[in-house]
């Protein structure tokens, strides 16, 4: 019984968190969906025609289209696929990942971002926005040493957090411009 209750409470909390995040993410678009609510921890969007959409990636993509900011989903079929891939990566790998898994995710992203400014193509996309929101709590916790270890992630993160209107309620993360630790060590 107790476990059941805990489970329910946990679900409710997750739901609120996801809903809040979805809301925040959508503020970047020139519209605030008033009809956004959540079941369990997945945000649900109720359209005026009665139809519903569920899921963070789905709703975000839908709103981006509705806001006539299609370019945020990618300029070409290739880029649209890359954007969707990173949205999926965020939802399936990054969200709720275990502490040990964090290291691998940071390592993968760091490797991916070696020669890139954005996650998809040469422009800011929804992938950057949602990944930023999803990874924020992890970057917050990193020590200077780790930030340097995952240098490319930190650089990308710092770039995105300085995008006008993207950060919302999230605390800015201080990124030192200079390396404290010599390269190749630690």
């Amino acid at each position: 019984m107790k476990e059941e209750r805990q489970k329910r409470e946990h679900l409710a909390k997750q739901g609120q968190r996801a809903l809040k995040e979805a809301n925040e993410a959508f503020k970047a678009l020139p519209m605030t969906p008033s009809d956004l609510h959540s079941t369990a921890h997945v945000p649900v969007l109720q359209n005026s025609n009665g139809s519903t959409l569920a899921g963070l990636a789905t709703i975000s993509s839908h709103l981006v289209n509705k806001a006539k900011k299609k370019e945020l989903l990618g300029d070409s079929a290739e880029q649209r696929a890359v954007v969707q891939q990173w949205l999926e990566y965020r939802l399936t790998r990054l969200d709720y990942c275990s502490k040990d898994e964090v290291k691998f995710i940071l390592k993968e992203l760091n490797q991916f971002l070696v020669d890139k400014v954005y996650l998809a193509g040469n422009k800011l996309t929804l992938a950057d926005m949602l990944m930023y929101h999803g990874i924020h709590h992890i970057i917050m916790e990193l020590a200077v040493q780790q930030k340097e270890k995952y240098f490319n992630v930190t650089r990308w993160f710092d770039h995105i957090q300085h995008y006008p209107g993207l950060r919302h309620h999230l605390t800015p993360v201080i990124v030192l411009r200079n390396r404290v630790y010599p390269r190749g060590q630690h």
Partner: protein
Amino acid sequence: MKLFVTEGSPQCVKVLAALEHTGVKCDVQLLSQEESIVSFLSRPVLPAALLPSGHELFSANAICQYLFEVGGKEITDASRQLLEWEATELQVMIRITVFPYCDHFPLVLLQALHVAVLQGKRSEAGMLLKNPLSWLEQHLSGKNTSFLTAETVEVADIVLWAALYCILSDAAFEAGELRSVRSWFERVSQLPACAKAAQKILPGKESNALKNFLQKQPASHAQRKENLPSQTEDTEHVMTEEEIEEAAQAWSKGLPECHEPIERHHPVLPKEGKRNVLVTSALPYVNNVPHLGNIIGCVLSADVFSRYGRLRGWNLLYVCGTDEYGTATENKALEEGLTPRQICDKYYAVHNAIYKWFQIDFDFFGRTTTQQQTEISQNIFFRLYERGFLNEDIVEQLRCENCQRFLADRFVEGVCPNCKYPEARGDQCDKCGRLINAVELKDPLCKVCGQTPVIRTSKHLFLDLPKLEADLEKWLEKSVNTGDWTTNAKQITRSWIRDGLKPRCITRDLKWGTPVPLPEYSEKVFYVWFDAPIGYLSITANYTSEWEKWWKNPQQVELYNFMAKDNVPFHSVVFPCSLLGAQDNYTLVNHLIATEYLNYEDTKFSKSRGVGVFGDMAKDTGIPSDVWRFYLTYVRPEGQDSSFSWVDLALKNNSELLNNLGNFINRAGMFVSKFFNGCVPEIVLQDEDKRLIAQVSWELKQYIQLMDKVRKRAGTVTGVSVNVACLLSAVLEPYMPTVSQTIRAQLQAPDNCASAMLGAEGCFLRSLPTGHRIGMVQPLFQKLESEQIEILKKKFGGQQPEEETPTGKGPSNKTSTTESKPPTAADLKASVSAADPRESQTAGYS
């Protein structure tokens, strides 16, 4: 485009079916499961697609979307929603299986396949998939279309069909009433594209390919983790058995019987057969309170090094002092209505107190306004004079008759001779940027009183650097190649020599300085850059009458100079030239260590704007001096400029010091106190402990990461831990002397443990044997709360908005001259003198 697939993987069925269905042209390559295509992923993932633009796709769903789009079909919201559901609910099942304290989520579909296919437990698999399948059933029964989203086959149909193929094509699989799901599944299965894809990836009836695939696929994140290759970047030092055994034996021997801690007897003098090390840090200019950048740039860096050297058993002398002569002091005296001597006395005390608080352990902290300074400077001067290294020349200068003095370049303002800008300074025009000789200014005005100055000629002495260049280069080559010079020190020196050396004026028309000992120069004093470095010698002479044993003894003495980068040329070129020209067997610098600049929260330290933390304020923050020392050495600007950040300071204190270091030492001590009556327990080293000891001996840093893993056998582990605490106290001594002493006091560790372990090549020894009684164990660090930090950040942030000054390019240790309101005469003097490069460079830290 290229597509890479592997046999047995349902994810690969997805992409092949999509490929067949859309008819997109593409190379397909069949690989084995372990082959890695996407280089940045930590484990091999198939399918993978290599797109024409070079992008790599590693998500089957994204590949399918791409194929459908290329095939001319737009992805609808409804499709997207089902794809997201498939990835997050069917595969990973985040929504349904949320356990409050479980930090990973089962890969549900894989798990279901595992139990159904490998273990034959179909009903259990049915239980696992009950929720997602009934959701799908509901979704489909509410539709009146033939397929999931429309009357035609869309990307969602392919993806979901392939995901469920192995489950639903098994007739024996039971998962309740799934009428709509089953009929939809049948419809999709009949598509030729789907049949073909299934056949290719999952050939044969016995589903052997699937079994092979599943056996290699872990079914949860937790298992996945174990399957990963061990991280190579964090590898430990690989040790041989002998190495480990040797380290453990050395450790068990304990401290040597009669290794007395080295006591310092003043005066410290060079000793035969010892490593004799002379350490100086750039002399801080007396008329300013040093800021954090000054402190890390010179005195603290040199102090850490000196403390370390003493622990290592070197015979080491660390001297420093305030640089007190020059216009800046005269101005400050004018401003405060005191004599220059009074100003120096006042600020010398301020400096002294600050360095005491920061626990800078000078052997002697002196000053430059002493009799010894006059004697030694004049002696060096005469030797240069006699040897023909000084030239006389006439210089035209502006003199303000009203103020009764020659005007330093920045004390004059007038019309620029080039662009007619009316407010050009005596050395440079702000408008056209051209360099100006002060006497060329039209309508010059004294900036202090506004009167028109007159041009006067004045005779001056010049040090003939070109004549000394050959000697200098010879010496430099040797010193740079055999000593330890930082990269910036080498570069700055090289560029100075490359630009060509010119004679440098060493005299000035001033009163506050070392008098020039020639009758016709009785009104003049030495230019600060000439006699300030001589301060090192005179300060040592104030410490001991036998100063020449340090300063005229290059055979026995190694000289280390610590400074910020703006001071490099005076220590690597100009001062060595004076000493070389004097031809008196002077000790010249062997190791020149220069730092870059420390910025304050990404802006410059500025006294006039109240930005930044200055030495005397650090005490008032309530943060212990050891924490300051730790943080400043942590952000020490070595390769490039670095920044002081309050938030980072708090983070470092709370994580590195309190959580890691403090907790470890406290716990080790507490365990001894609580469970072993305050006495170090019996220690029976097992392999794991020996390995640990060897590792600690090899590199302490690695130990800290290992620590968490070792907590099985309480007694031995506790015993080893308090001994590690003891070693930590020794290693920390240079950085945080108080903390280091506190640890040793709490553990009642023998005094000689630090020098015994750090001497020679360094060895981890058992300082606290079984039965040793430890003292009272108390926390070492306090948490810095974010509110506290916010208050401090505001307090030291100055009155002006931060964004006003972007990251400083210039020296952080110069007071900024940007003033928004008209400056008062007093302000002006302060800023003018501080900005005069010749004034500030030798003095360094104005």
